[in-house]
């Protein structure tokens, strides 16, 4: 209905038809085939990217209830049966639980009848939502590439431009990475295999990555992924158009769905009174993240990534994108938010107290480096790789895989605010004792074996790395309950069996100082060795056979003699 008013005012609304409730009734009852055929025939001539079928109930988009998102919208091809099916499905959403619950919550009656709008689908290069009034600061534009479906369903992170008309022309609040866009396909493109290429509106090629509800998902051309979805000129045009829409509808606070096609034309897809005044789905000041969670007050945000290196740190974020520092000069001892690791990034990796990277997986180079450096790290956190995170106080949890932007955090790089906390081991955890900043001697693995051969607890100690000075009395070790020493693969023992055994290689020739002179050596498959101080059991697993032992304990520290 609203779109009809806008079209009659000469504003750019895609061509289409309103099916009155009676016509919808005919189609739903299987008697509207001729009507659907006429729509399909029209689409063949006038809608190269198919049709979009949407609800158009009288009760929608009103001042007291918008029913935004409560009714189904479907894209369909120029096919009689598919048009009929789409109209039937849209009509069926009238009786959906969502609409009823929405009406009940707002204390209004749900629509009893529904008209249906059938329009030519627009194939946009960009699209989004424009709020004409946002927090009394002027307008806000949220923009994505392709259709706005992923934006309005909250499944992707949009570019955000938030300012007065004058400021809108100069900058963005955030520019998101846009790896996927939805497009309505041509008839031929509906059969295109994923992995093939289609034309991107406005030029270039996009790779098909999926087919989804009669739409195609594509990877946009690479240069567009990190760029603002709309240009300065387009933003200004959108603001002018929004002003005209507000005048026509006599409504100052609107949210407007818009789309810019490949020829540079802007289209109005929807206009309704600002839905935030009806149902505050998005409290002012909060941003939405596709995989994240809003929590707490103010602008606290959580990005859920993948836990890649344990530990928890808090500090100011430093955002470094693919092409360099986006958000200001480097700061020391902050939480680094970065793209794929590269050699030039190593100094920043060394300085950071924690790392969140956009690469996915536990085996990406950044994650491996983080583990080597012993810094907490999460991967797949690309949603935080934007300038609005830079300088914000964040907490990175490398165990939970989260990056949290703290509420009301100052916009500064105050390294005094950095804290590093190591969680205490959970009850029952194996405890590794580390002495100081680096390994300086034998370290104790403190889990109690399930059964000791002589009914006394036995332990396996791990040997320090090559080059670390150590010297232990084997008798004291045995008396202390040590069954064996685990020698890391890094010792690179040569498994020769002379009368003194391969331990000589490990100890760099100083055999006399060794606790292992009389040890028996068992190679392990990963290159490590077990040096038995007691008679080794055979087979190995039999050593620990028996009933379960008691709780985990921390073995008393062996001091360096």
């Amino acid at each position, binding site marked *: 209905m609203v779109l009809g008013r806008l079209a009659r005012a000469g504003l750019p609304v895609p061509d289409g038809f309103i099916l009155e409730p009676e016509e919808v009734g005919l189609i739903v009852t299987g008697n509207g085939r001729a009507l659907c055929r006429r729509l399909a025939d029209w689409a063949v001539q006038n809608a190269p990217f198919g049709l979009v079928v949407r609800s158009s109930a009288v009760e929608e988009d009103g001042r007291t209830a918008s029913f935004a998102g409560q009714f189904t919208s479907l894209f369909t091809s120029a096919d009689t049966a598919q048009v009929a099916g789409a109209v039937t499905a849209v009509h069926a959403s009238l009786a959906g639980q969502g609409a009823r619950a929405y009406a009940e919550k707002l204390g209004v009656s749900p629509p009893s009848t529904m008209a249906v709008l059938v329009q030519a689908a627009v194939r946009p290069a960009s699209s989004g939502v424009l709020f004409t009034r946002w927090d009394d600061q002027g307008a806000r534009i949220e923009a994505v590439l392709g259709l706005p479906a992923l934006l309005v369903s909250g499944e992707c992170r949009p570019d955000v431009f938030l300012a007065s008309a004058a400021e809108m022309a100069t900058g963005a609040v955030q520019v998101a990475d846009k790896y996927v866009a939805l497009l309505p396909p041509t008839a031929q493109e509906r059969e295109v*295999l*994923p*992995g093939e290429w289609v034309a991107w509106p406005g030029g270039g090629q996009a*790779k098909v*990555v*999926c*087919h989804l509800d009669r739409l195609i998902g594509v*990877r946009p051309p*690479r240069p567009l992924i990190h760029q603002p979805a709309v240009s300065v000129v387009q933003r200004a045009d959108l603001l002018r158009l929004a002003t005209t829409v507000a005048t026509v509808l006599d409504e100052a606070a609107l949210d407007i769905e818009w789309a810019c096609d490949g020829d540079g034309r802007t289209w109005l897809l929807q206009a309704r009174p600002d839905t935030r005044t009806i149902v505050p789905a998005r409290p002012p000041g909060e941003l939405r993240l596709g995989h994240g969670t809003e929590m707490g007050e103010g602008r606290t945000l959580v990005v859920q990534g993948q*836990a890649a290196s*344990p530990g928890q740190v808090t500090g100011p974020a430093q955002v470094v994108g693919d092409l360099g520092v986006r958000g200001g000069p480097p700061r020391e001892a902050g939480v680094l938010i970065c793209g794929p690791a*590269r*050699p030039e990034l*190593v*100094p920043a*990796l*060394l300085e950071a107290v924690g790392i969140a990277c956009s690469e996915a997986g*536990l*085996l*990406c*180079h950044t*994650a*491996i*480096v983080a*583990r*080597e*450096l*012993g810094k907490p790290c999460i991967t797949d956190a690309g949603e935080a790789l934007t300038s609005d995170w830079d300088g914000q106080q964040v907490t990175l949890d490398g*165990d939970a895989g989260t990056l949290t932007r703290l509420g009301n955090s100052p916009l500064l790089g105050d390294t005094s605010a950095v804290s590093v906390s190591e969680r205490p*081991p*959970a*009850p*029952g*955890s*194996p405890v*590794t004792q*580390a002495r100081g900043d*680096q*390994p300086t001697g034998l370290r104790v*693995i403190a*889990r109690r*074996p*399930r*059964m000791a051969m002589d009914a006394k607890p036995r*332990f*396996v100690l*791990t040997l320090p*790395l090559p080059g670390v000075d150590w010297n232990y009395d084997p008798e004291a070790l045995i008396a202390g309950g040590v069954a064996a020493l*685990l020698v*890391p*693969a*890094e010792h690179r023992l040569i498994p020769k069996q002379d009368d003194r055994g391969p331990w000589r290689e490990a100890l760099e020739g100083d055999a006399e100082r060794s606790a292992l002179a009389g040890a028996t050596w068992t190679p*392990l*498959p*990963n290159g*490590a060795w077990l040096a038995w101080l007691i008679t080794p059991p055979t*087979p190995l*697993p039999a050593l620990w*056979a*028996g009933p379960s032992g008691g709780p985990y304990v921390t073995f008393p520290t062996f001091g360096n003699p």
Partner: protein
Amino acid sequence: MELRWRGVVTADYEMELDHGALVERDLYGRGLRAAPCVLLDDPRPLGRTRRPGVVDIDVEVYETFCERVRERLLTLQGAMHAATVFRDACAQVCSVLEQLERRLADGTPPVELAQLPALLDRLMALHTLNWLLPDREAVEHLTVLFGDEQAARRCALAQMVPIVPAHLLDLHQRLITTADTGNFTGFARAVGHLQAPGLAPAAWEDPAAVAVSVDTLRKRVGGSEGLAEQDDRIRRGRDRAVQQRVDLYAAALLASSGDASAWDRTQAIGVLFPLAADEEEERRRLQGWVLRVLRETAARHHVDAQTLTLDDFAALASGRGAERGRGC
């Protein structure tokens, strides 16, 4: 990237390598197809090559393959097999590359190029560990052992510290050493190509660019003391990480006691997880080296390296021109 439609999984390496050379995508696509042979001793190649870097696989075949690989890798025998394949492939690729570099130096025909595709297929097959590493199953196993999921995750992550140092940190330490020695040419020739992935020459392959980077780094960290401090920080960090890997492996071994199958699985994790990290780092080094040698070989033969597949390069061994690359 893995795409699914109408019963077919498409492994599309063009997605991330769309700016790269044909041979880079080809390396990955061929490696994926060779993975059943390399990891499962199953001679049937996986799926069909649509074009270099794009492989279509029937969903059922693909899922069966993934399941079998994950199961096998969590056995000691399977993990040891993967480790052996990887080490052998690395050694053989290194050997061939050294020979090819000698050919480039003395101008003799690069006959060893003919061996390269088969060797690289075996090496690149291991890149599937990126998504076939059974980390979830491993954490479940370790959770049973330790009685605590967080401890299990920490143990699993600790195992993913490579035996060889991460190439980025190693490269940085070499840069620090170069700041001392001033041997920019040596750095550029030995490791300059590792600065950036791909076939195109990296900036650090030029000694002058290395000198600039060293100077920038020196200024950033406040001179030689700062460089030494960075070097020390990397070394200490790695020592800690390696020690933790060993400690937690020992803890897992102990906790596996009394249960032969748990003992076997724990050892498999102890082999497989460092291997997965090693594979990522060593493959990156070798890939960089391979691409540099291929680029230089193509230049020697006056063909366009960007347009050649691995088989096209191999054809250069016999003096057969890679016709598609002619005319650059």
